[in-house]
Every structure is written in C-alpha cells, then in structure tokens.
C-alpha cells in the first residue's frame, strides 16, 4: 500500500493548525480548530485509499480494477455531512451561550480560571445538598430515643408532639451531644 507524501504532510499541517486553534478560549476559535481537524481527519481516511483511480461508478466499459477504493469514500461522505451538523450545533451553542450569559464584548470566551473555581465550589454545594435530608432523618431517629428522667416529670413535660417544640428539640440535641 502506498500513499501520497504530499497528502500525508498536508494532513499533518492541517491537524497541527487545528489543534493550535482549538486550545484557545474563544469558542469560535475552537470551532475553527474543529473544522480544520475534521478536514484533516477526512483527508487521512482518504489517503488510506492508496493510489487514486477512476471514479467508482461502473459505467459501461469501466474496468473494476481501475477504480479508486470506494470504501473510504463511503465513510467520508457521511462524515462530511455530519461535520456540517456538528458545526451548526456548535454555532448554536456559541450563540446561545453568548446570548444567555450576556457576554457582550467578551464575545464567546469560555470561563477563565477564577470562574471555574467559583463554579467548582458551587458544584460541591450541590453535591452536599442531601446533607439536610440526612440530618432530618437523623433528628427523627434521635428524638425517638428515650432519655432517663426523674419520676413524675414525664407526665407534665410531654404534652406536645415530640419535636414540634423547637426549644424542646434543641434541649434534646444538647443532651445527646
């Protein structure tokens, strides 16, 4: 199997340039990188057909041995169309994030370090949001535990439903801890 050195070099250049752009913070530039990388990868698949020949259309008189390998072409054809779809989707994302986040003159920049850290702490809060649920059930369990009280005080002290009285609850919490 042989291939064209020119095309291999072109794949390398387009891929490298694409990655370079993709590493920026601007989403539009990321998309530009995506397009370059996409074209480079398509071309890489194309290189795998080996030596080019006639178009793979079997008109009368076409020798099937002389046509290009159609298999990579099939792979690429749908890839090209799907590239269009993904590009449109990313564009919609860019527009939406700019529009929603009111980035204004900042355009389409993704968050920088500081923003990331803030949202990271926010995420930790979300992760811990079930804590209140956990302590709620713990409270209920503890309220049901009998504490020892001197004879006689029980009948007078317990009138309301246990836990309905906040002061009472605080008292018990104190006892337990």
């Amino acid at each position, binding site marked *: 199997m042989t291939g064209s050195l020119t095309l291999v070099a072109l794949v*390398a250049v387009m891929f490298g340039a694409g990655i370079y752009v993709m590493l920026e913070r601007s989403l539009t530039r990321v998309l530009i990188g995506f397009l370059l990388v996409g074209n480079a990868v398509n071309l890489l698949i194309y290189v795998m057909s080996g030596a080019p020949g006639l178009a793979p259309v079997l008109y009368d008189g076409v020798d099937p041995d002389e046509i290009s390998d159609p298999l990579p072409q099939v792979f690429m054809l749908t890839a090209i169309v799907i590239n269009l779809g993904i590009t449109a989707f990313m564009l*919609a994302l860019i527009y939406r994030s700019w529009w929603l986040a009111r980035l204004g003159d900042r355009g389409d920049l993704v968050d920088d370090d500081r923003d990331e850290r803030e949202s990271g702490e926010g995420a930790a809060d979300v992760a811990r949001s079930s804590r209140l649920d956990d302590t709620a059930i713990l409270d209920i369990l503890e309220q*049901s535990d009998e504490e020892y009280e001197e004879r006689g005080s029980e009948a007078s002290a317990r009138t309301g439903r246990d836990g309905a009285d906040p002061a009472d609850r605080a008292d018990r919490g104190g006892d337990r801890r």
Partner: protein
Amino acid sequence: MLVSLGLFALVSLLTPFATRLLGRRVFLVIAILPAAVFAWLCAQLPLVVGGSEETGASGELVEQFRWIPRLGIELGFRLDALSLLLALVVTGVGALVLLYCAWYFRDDEPSLGRFASLLLLFAGVMFGLVTADDVFALFIFWEATSVLSYLLIGHYTGRRESRGAALQALTVTTFGGLVMLVGLVLLAVAGETTSLATLLATPVTGAAAEWGVALVLVGAISKSALVPFHFWLPAAMAAPTPVSAYLHAAAMVKAGVYLVARLAPGYADLSVWHPIVIGLGVLTMLVGGWRALRQYDLKLLLAYGTVSQLGFMIVVVGFGTRDAALAGVALLLAHALFKSTLFLVVGIVDHAAGTRDWRELSGVGRRMPVLATFAGLAAASMAGLPPLIGFVAKEAVFEAFLEGVAHGEAWAWLALVGVVVGSILTVAYTVRFFWGAFWRRDGKPDTPLHDEGAGILVSPVVLSTAGVVAAFTIAAIEPLLTAYADELPGPQEYHLALWHGFGPPLAISALVFGVGALLVWLRRPVARFQAATPEWFDASREYLSIVRGIDRFAASLTMFIQRRGLPGYVAVIVLVLVAGLGTGLLLNGAWPEEVRAWDFPAQPFIAAVMAVAAIAAAVASHRVTAILLVGVTGYGLVMLFGMSGAPDLALTQALVESLTLVAFVLVLRRLPKQIAQHNPPVRRRFRAIIGILAGAVMGIVGLVALGARIQPSISGGLPELALEAHGKNIVNVMLVDIRAWDTLGEISVLVAVATGVASLIFVSGRTGAAPRLDSSAGRRERVQPIVEQSNVRDDRATTRQAWLLAGRTLGPRNRSILIEVLVRLLFHPAIIVSIYLLFTGHNAPGGGFAGGLLAGLALVARYLAAGRYELGEAVPVDAGKLLGFGLLLAAATATAPLLFGSTVFASSWFEWHVPVLGEISFGTSTFFDIGVYLVVVALVLDILRSLGAEVDRHREEGIDTADGNDPDDGTDGDEASVTADDTAATGPVDAAITPGEARP
C-alpha cells in the same frame, strides 16, 4: 413463573391509569394478582413437598429461558421448598398489604397511582428474587428491589426525612449489592455455572469459595440490615406504613435471610461463614433489641425490633444444621406474620390518633378492642409466648442450639447465649410496644380517635390469626419446611410442635419470660442505665461522615482537575494522544515500503495553498477571515477529491463547505467582530508546541497505517455487490444498500443535531414552520413599519416589482433586485437538479446526501435574498415533521421487508427507461435515499430557521439577553428604529453579512 412476572410487570404499567379511574379502590383490583399467584403456589405444594411419584423425593418446578447464551446466563427459575415458602410469604402478605392500602390511603393522596404501581411491581420483583435460579437473574431482581425500595421510601417526595432515608437505604443496599455481584461472579466462574442449584449441589471450594461467599454475605447482611449496615432500616420508616409492613418487615429485608438460607446447605462449613453469620447476627440481635427498648415512636420500636429479629433469623438459618434450618424457616414464617401485622396495626393507630408516639397515646386499647386483641396475639407471637407460631419456632431454635452445645461447638455457645439475651430484650420491647400502644396511662385523658372503618382491620386480623392457626396446624406445614431443612446435615428426628414436654428448651423459654418481665418491672433503672451508656453502634453518624467525606473529596478533586477550563482539558487530551499514540507508533515502525511524492502534478500546488490557508486560519485575528481561510482548505479538498476519482466526495464537500460558511456568517453577525486574544505569549508557544507535536503524530499515523496494511482491501468484491444491488455508483449503493444500517445511524445523528440546534435557539417551543407572510395578522403588522419607513427613505422601493414573495418585508437598504431576480430564476432549476441527483445517485455521482444539500442551498438562497418570511413561504412545513418523516421513511424501508418474511434492509427493484433521466432503477433503497434526502433538507431548514430566522427575530425585537421579555410581547412599534440602531451599532461587519444586505 415467568408468566406471573410478566403479569406483574404488565399490571404495574396499567395501574397508574387505572388509579385515575378507580382512586384508592385500585388496590382492591391489583391485590387480586398476588392473591392469584398465591393460589397457584398453593396448588404447587403437593408437587414440591410430595415430589413426583416415581422418585419419591421432594420435587421442584424448573423454568429456563435462553437469555445471554454466550455468557451462559439464562433466565432460570426454580421453585423448590425454600423458594415456595418465601414466594408464599411474598405473595400472601403482598396481597393483604395491598388490600390494606385501599383503606389506608385516601383518594386525594398525591402520586397514588405511582405508589400502587411500584408496590405491585415490588411484589413481582420479590417473587422473581426468591424463585430465580440463575445468580445473575437473582442479582438483577435483588438490585431492582433496592431501587423500588428507594422509590417507595421516598414516597413523600416533599419531606426531607423521606428523601434522606430513601437515599440512605439505596446507598447502603446497592453498595452491598455490588459487593455481592463480585462474589457471585467469583462463584459462577469458579463453579463454571450460573445456576444456584448446581453451585449448591457441587459446591465451589478453596479460596474462590471463601472470598466469593464472604462477598455475597456482605450483600446479604446489608440487605437484611445487620450491623454495621443496620441503620438504614429504622430510617426507612419514613415510608408509608404499608411499605414498612411489606418491604421492611415481611419481604425485602428477608432477601438476605433467604440468601443465607439458600447458601447454607453448600457453604456453611467455610471458615468465613460462622464469624459473619453468627457473629454479626448475634450482635445485631442485641443492638436492635437494646435500641428498640428505648423508642418512643412505636414504628421505630418495631423497626429496631425488626433489625433484632433479622439478626436472630440469620443466626438460626446460618447455623448449618438440619434442626437449626428447620427452626430458622419456621421463625421466618412466624416473623413475616407477626411483624407485618404489628406494622399494619401501628398504621391504623397512627391514622386514628394522629401520632405514633406512645407518650401521647392513652386508652386506645379500650376503644379499639378488636385491633388490640389481634395486635396482642401478634405481639405474643413476637415475644415467643405459647400457643403461637413464634413460640413453636423459638422452642425449635433453643433445641437446635442446645444440641450444638452438647456437641461442644463454640459457635453454638455464642449463638445460644446471644439468642437467649436477645429474646429477653424481645420480650421487654414487646411489652413496651403493647403497653405503649394500647394501655391507659394514669392522669392522661384518652386520646381522641378518628373512625377508620372496619375494612382496614381485615389484613391485620387475617395475618394475626394465621399466626395462631399455623401454631396448631404446624404438623401440616412442617413437610414444606423439612423439605428444605433436610438438605442440611444432622439427624432428621426433631419435629416442630406446640408441646414437647418439659425439657431444657421450655426451661429456657421460662427463663426468657421471667427475665423479660423483670426488665419490664425495672423499667426506670433500665432506662437510666441505657441513657448513661454511650451509643456504640450508632452507625448512621459514621455513615454520614463517610458520605460527606466522599462529597468533599469529589468536589476538591473536581476543582483540582477542572481548574484550567476547556483549553486545559483539550490540552490534556491531545497530550495523551501524542504521548500514547506517538510512543506506540515509534515502537511499531511499520513504515510503508514505497511512498510517492504526489499522485498527480497539481496535487502539491493545491496542497500548498491549503497548508498556507490552514496556518493562516490558525493565526488570523478576525473571525470572518479565519472562516474564509478554513473554507479555502475545504474547497481545496473538493479539488483533490474531484481530480482523483472521488466525484461524490467532491460534490458533497463543495455543498457542505458552502453551507458551513453560511451558517458561520449567520451566527457571527451577532458576535463582536474581534476574536479576543487573552492568551499570554507563553501559552501561545505552549499551544504551538502541542499543535506541532499533534500534527507530526497524525502524519506518522498516516504513514504507518499505510505501511501496516497487509491484507488486501475488501473493496475488491464491492463492484460485483453493487451491480447485484442494481446500482453503478458503488459509493451510493453502499450508503443506501450494503451499509444501510450505518447510514440509518448517521441520519439519526443528523436528526438529533438538527433538533439540538433548534432547541438551543428557540426559547419557548420549536414546533411550527418558519414564519409566513399571512400566518398571523400580528406578524404582518410587525412587518408594516419597515415598508412605511421605506416610503420616506426611498421611493423606489414601492415601485419595485416583487420578484420574491417576501421581498417587500425587507427594508430598502437590505434589498437587492439583482439577487432577487437571480434567486427567482435559479431556485426552481436548483430544486429540479437536486431531485435529479437524488434519483440518479444510484448510477451516477449524486444521491440523497448531495441532492438534499443542494436543495438546502437553494433554500439558503431564498432566505438570504428576502429574509425569514421568504423561508416560510418557500417551505411552509415544520422542519421537525420533515425530519421525522425522513427518518420514518428510512426506518420503514429497513423494517418493511420483515413483513414479507425477509430480513431487515433486504432490497427489491424494478427498472424502467425514462427519457432524459435515462435508466432508472427504482427499488426499496430509493425510498431509503428519499428518506436521507428529506433529513438533509430538514437539517438545513432547521439551521436556517434557527440560526437565521430566529436570530433575526432576536435582533429585530432587541432581545439581547435571555432575561428578556416574552418575545411575542415585544413592542412592535419600535422595530424600525431598533433595526437601524442595531445596524449602526454593530458596524460594517454586521452590515456586510446581514441577509440581503449586499446592495451597492
């Protein structure tokens, strides 16, 4: 058995709908199903207990269905004595609990349909669990019970404690379940079978067995709430009472006991067995009883009592002798009867009095005598008083352990002492329960009670009576129990009975009652002692701190890893690619034997232009420049493809490239013009190095991939296949016929992407076609101001001939007569050509993709020339419907052959000669291609509708940010001025790329 499971699933699905019609009466209907299964199971009793007449041994009912033959996993079900006992408990108690629900809930209970459906489904899943023979089927049912338990505990979604309890139960039981899965895999691999029966008949030995069984036991003890996992069960009492009675007393928590009982015949002599089963069982029995003794809340008292009893049962069934096993299954039956009764009783008391705290209850027993009587029977059974099934079981337990002690077994001593102490605690907390729930307290007025109706009493009365009846008919029940127990070693002499004569077991029972009564008598000193003793086994605190620790660790790890944002991720991914793939490539070194410099002389020139464009695109500072340069690389590909035997690719790439440019420009007109360059120079150098490395690696990939190919391409056979499929264009034939499955997947991706684009841009709902001229009066009015304004600014506008339907909707500055005329002349020919491409694609370059893209481009032209109303006029259909129809057509083509007894995507053809178009081969694959065509057109339409028309609307209505006004409430009168301001503000770039703005 599979039929029953299917019925459970089906009825559960229908239950929510039935609930809408029937309200709470739906429970009466769905209770019929478990009752029917119960009856069917009873009919199987003779077979299972008596066995078939030929063999005489106890029989079993086996059902097997192929499921995953490659892994040797089958949907195997086996109904033997143990399974039958459990299944009877599950369906019997299940039916009664469902019956109880009909009175427990009111019609206006929120999410009643969901609750009913889940509870019924749980009954079915539990039935599957106890009858499953395949270990992996067992595991799936096992986890399904955990999930259903989660949903049922969390029934009151609005309550914090409900959610917390549900999550705790789920976390603990699925943790145990996963550990169990590892154990099951170990056992299944070592035993070379997934059948439980085979694993027990020929037990696995050695380290695999020790580890496997230990891990499975972890699952069992987490499910059955043994120490240290016991805390989830009391918490689960946040569930509605029927759930507690069924899942957390009779059924789900028994799953662990069942598994221990199931494994005991084969694995009770392993060295890991007794420490886990007896050690933890005894500990649990004591901890549960101890804590039950200090509860105010009656339901929690029962919950801790259940924890204690579960430990008790596991000790007994896991002890490993025939007599202990017999006692264990008797205990299991007894517990299912009395504990579910007591929970149901607490539910009634709770409803009637409005509280479950016994300090507030007084005199309930006098006014609910029937309830108190039957609760008393069940409580007595729990305490082990004669003449009740609980007593029968407990006598058998003492006898079995005494026998072990007589043989000098150390574990028997521990078990006996533990069980005796635990039983004393049981007597004490049983008295506390009954006294607390029903007694009259001095100086406290009787608690006011609501009338609950007699129907709600049916289930507890039946269950409680069953406990009495079972004790007297124990001889009739025993064969079922011995059929299981005889699988274990030991003399088969002992029989369950109410009266064994005076002997050591009776003496122990008397001791238990005596000391228990003493504990009740000394209630105050005991309470003082309990309050003074530190909580040694308050595992819920430890659980919470572990969970919190994990949360914090996850958050800090996330913050550490994700600090660098998107570019950081991409850099890491690319560096891994470079390092991994690069190293692999250099070590591999399958270089091609020969390499040509180029394929044809023009190639290096085209490639050079493309390379320069790619680099320039990477460093360009204006977005539009960058995109045009990317376009150059795309059109370069078109030339490369076109000049070397890939006309289909060239055509598609050219069309896609044009559409990409349009889509880009449509969005970029809204964004600021400059691409902000915030990256410091250091990072730029870093990025350049990564880029160069990545490019080099990909170049090497290309070379090595070429060199590494040693097999001939499969493409050699394709021409023949293509002709067989009546097509000359191999590429298209492969797309729509040979590899049609792939294409179906790919157009599904397109549908998803198009839907995604529309959903991102449309704020409220995406249905409907693009706006049309006459679609609503409101829209027309909105258009008017521009036209009127045009009279003032530019008289020519009114006199102009309208070449396009919506041309007048644009302001005069945005109109171009030249473009309108061109579009008018070219649109219809373009559509015709696109259809031509679609139909000749099978035999010449073209096909659904290219045709659809061309039609899409024609729509782009209409939109660019005359704006969004023109788009609506050109395609007055909903893009979503077009997408759906295209996909449906393609999928129908795929499945239609099935109706004719053929395989998916089998194709058939007929051909005829048409003038101009030439030879036409019309086959099923053509319909598939039409589907592709429609999907592609709809994709382009969605892009235009969203990124074009809808963004226009945002612009016109001045919706700059999402906080915005409801778009339809926008102030129409200001529209013209807003448009003008907008144009001025965003400057020349904006103006140059506004649709129809190309006017000189």
